[in-house]
């Protein structure tokens, strides 16, 4: 009943919002965009919208913040059920399968562009980014908006204080292990911490070592997918992390990005986090820091493959007029423009979604002035993605991540071995996948 109540409240709020904006009807066609950005990101988003509105007078984009990612998705769903959905909805990457299964509720981007007669060349987008939002047949379903990938942040001062050469090679977990030992011996209280443990240490770990996270191309091949992240590569990594946790070398800070505050405060020496955390670290860190590629296990053959993205994409919802969809197409093309993307990339630390924006940023000398900001792109594009490294498409993925969080916590607390925990996570997650399969057949 609580759920019902929240959904009803969401729907009511959605109605009010629409009612209010409809009151100020303009001659231009209105395009509504519901998003999950507030604070600095919200300001940058608003600036993009203003630039689009100023660039032409046929359409007016109205951007509305609907809370965090899951709140935004829920607001969109509730509004759709009430027939009051916005044109564009920002959905986080774990919601991709939910959106894809919503046949009839979404208009795939490639269809939108075709029917609106807009220019659209999918090849300009970074393969590693768009792959996450593309069907196995190569059709783009949503427009990538904010994408990032995990990297390693290093507090150089902390390494130096512990008598370690700050330029030491940290490209492999084997080397990182040695540095953690040295930090611990020097009495450091937080040698390593992380944000988003499932995303960094299981999802990306799997892709980076070309190990399947799930069957059927990580779920791209269909709803019958089954989790397989309890393979030897993942078990070995989680076992090593668990060992470090027991020895006080890996400090668990929480399920989200709680570790960020600790790293920025100088408390932790090494930190695995999204490349989009760069702006925050740069703004707050009072120590010498550096971005390094995410470490890999040298013992695993073929590693490093490529890392995968996190973040969100823009989905177009069905039920609007052709005229409005023309505006949506124009706006999405505007957002993909080189200048807009290059600025977005440089301001936020998110990846540029087009190759042209990357080149423009390089030419402007941004990477020379801000060393390490191109590592995320190199890490993602260094090798052509394989079926096991192009992304994940799993139903109920938000809940599966919750299950992974719970099971990993058991490893960090020492109450389960890596093998037990990952095995349990796989069998619990598979039950949810079967439910999702039944519900969406």
């Amino acid at each position, binding site marked *: *009943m*609580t*759920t*019902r*109540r*929240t*959904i009803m409240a969401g729907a009511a709020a959605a109605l009010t919002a629409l009612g209010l904006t409809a009151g100020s009807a303009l001659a231009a066609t209105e395009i509504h965009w519901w998003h999950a950005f507030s604070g600095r990101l919200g300001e940058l988003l608003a600036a993009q919208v203003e630039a689009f509105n100023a660039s032409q007078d046929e359409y007016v984009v109205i951007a509305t913040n609907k809370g965090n990612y*899951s709140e935004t*998705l*829920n607001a969109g*769903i509730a509004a*759709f*059920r009430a027939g009051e959905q916005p044109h564009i909805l920002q959905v986080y990457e774990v919601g991709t399968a*939910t959106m894809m*299964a*919503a*046949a*009839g*509720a979404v208009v795939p981007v490639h269809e939108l562009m075709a029917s609106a007669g807009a220019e659209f060349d999918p090849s300009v987008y970074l393969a590693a980014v768009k792959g996450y939002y593309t069907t196995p047949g190569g059709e783009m379903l949503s427009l990538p908006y904010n994408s990032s990938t995990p990297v390693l942040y290093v507090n150089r001062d902390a390494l130096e204080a512990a008598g370690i050469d700050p330029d030491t090679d940290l490209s492999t977990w084997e080397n990182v292990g040695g540095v953690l030992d040295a930090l611990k011996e020097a009495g450091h209280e937080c040698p390593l911490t992380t944000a988003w443990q499932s995303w960094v240490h299981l999802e990306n770990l799997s892709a980076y070592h070309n190990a399947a996270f799930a069957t059927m191309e990580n779920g791209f091949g269909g709803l019958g997918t089954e989790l397989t992240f309890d393979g030897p590569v993942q078990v070995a990594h989680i076992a090593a992390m668990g060992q470090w946790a027991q020895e006080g070398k890996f400090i*668990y*800070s*929480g*399920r989200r990005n*709680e570790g960020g*505050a*600790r790293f920025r*405060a100088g*408390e932790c020496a090494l930190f695995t986090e999204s490349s989009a955390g760069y702006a925050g670290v740069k703004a707050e860190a009072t120590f010498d820091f550096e971005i390094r590629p995410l470490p890999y296990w040298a013992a695993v053959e073929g590693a490093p493959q490529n890392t995968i993205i996190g973040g969100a994409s823009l989905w177009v919802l069905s039920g609007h007029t052709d005229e409005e969809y023309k505006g949506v197409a124009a706006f999405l093309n505007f957002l993909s423009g080189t200048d807009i993307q290059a600025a977005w990339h440089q301001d936020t630390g998110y990846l540029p979604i087009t190759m042209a924006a990357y080149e423009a940023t390089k030419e402007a000398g941004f990477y020379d002035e801000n060393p390490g900001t191109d590592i995320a792109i190199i890490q993602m594009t260094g090798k052509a993605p394989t079926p096991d490294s192009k992304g994940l498409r799993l139903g*109920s993925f*938000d*809940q599966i991540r*919750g299950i992974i*969080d*719970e*099971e990993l*916590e*058991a490893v*960090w*607390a020492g*109450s389960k071995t890596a093998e037990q925990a990952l095995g349990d996570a796989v069998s*619990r997650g598979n*039950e*949810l996948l079967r*439910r999702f399969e*039944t*519900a*969406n*057949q």
Partner: protein
Amino acid sequence: MDKRVTFRHRLLPWLLLAPQLAVTALFFLWPAAEAVWQSAFLPDPWGTKAIFVGFDNFTFLFGDPNYRESFAVTAIFSFSVAALSMGLALALAVGADRVIKGSGLYRNLLVWPYAVAPAIAGVLWLFMFNPSIGLVAYYLKALGYNWNHVLHGGEAMTLVVIAAAWKQISYNFLFFLAGLQAIPRSLIEAAAIDGAGAGRRFWTIIFPLLSPTTFFLLVVNVVYAFFDTFGIIHIVTGGGPQRDTTTLVYKVFSDGYEGQDLGSSAAQSVILLVVVGILTVIQFRWVERRVHY
């Protein structure tokens, strides 16, 4: 002689009841019926289709050992919240009842936390106990205790219990204070003259006479701990570490709202409704017998 006022009018009682009945039907019966209906389906989140699955949602839930465990978590949580908030509120009410000067000020201050939104209460306590920047965690560390509710289930449970109980103390305090003030002074004075000490007066006179209030608050607090606390749990622990603070209502919220699994969420609501119904029956049949009106 039996004196009774009678209303001949048959319509009037219904008319007077109508607003309350309408509210109950609109905000309780209708959603509850809807939840029962939905619990037999496996819908897709967008409402475009729903597959009838009968009791499958329930068998799925009870086949899950983690769901069964969350009953135990809920029992520990609810009992602790009710005991802690009622115990402290009673102690404070007894104290405030004795204060003569400035009693209004004390009372007002003690009522304040009730006006705090659950999420804010959660953040407040989270800040104090944050393992790296929290003041309380800092002092605990100075005492040699390494507080880390992010990893230790017992500490996480303690923290959500404290935060949830703290919010409810004010409400309980108001009722206990009113209850205390309704106890005739003459009874207490008579006991005092007979030589009963403060403790004895409390346990043999005040506490039994407070029992209607205590009983009422017990029902209210259990319902509070069951339904109204997911905001605090969401902010403070997110149900973790592992599943140590995942109560039944928190699971309803996270499965339905974050997981978009509306069928399972509806089934859980129905189970929760039955559990609270049974609890209320138990309270009224067995606990209420010990209440003196």
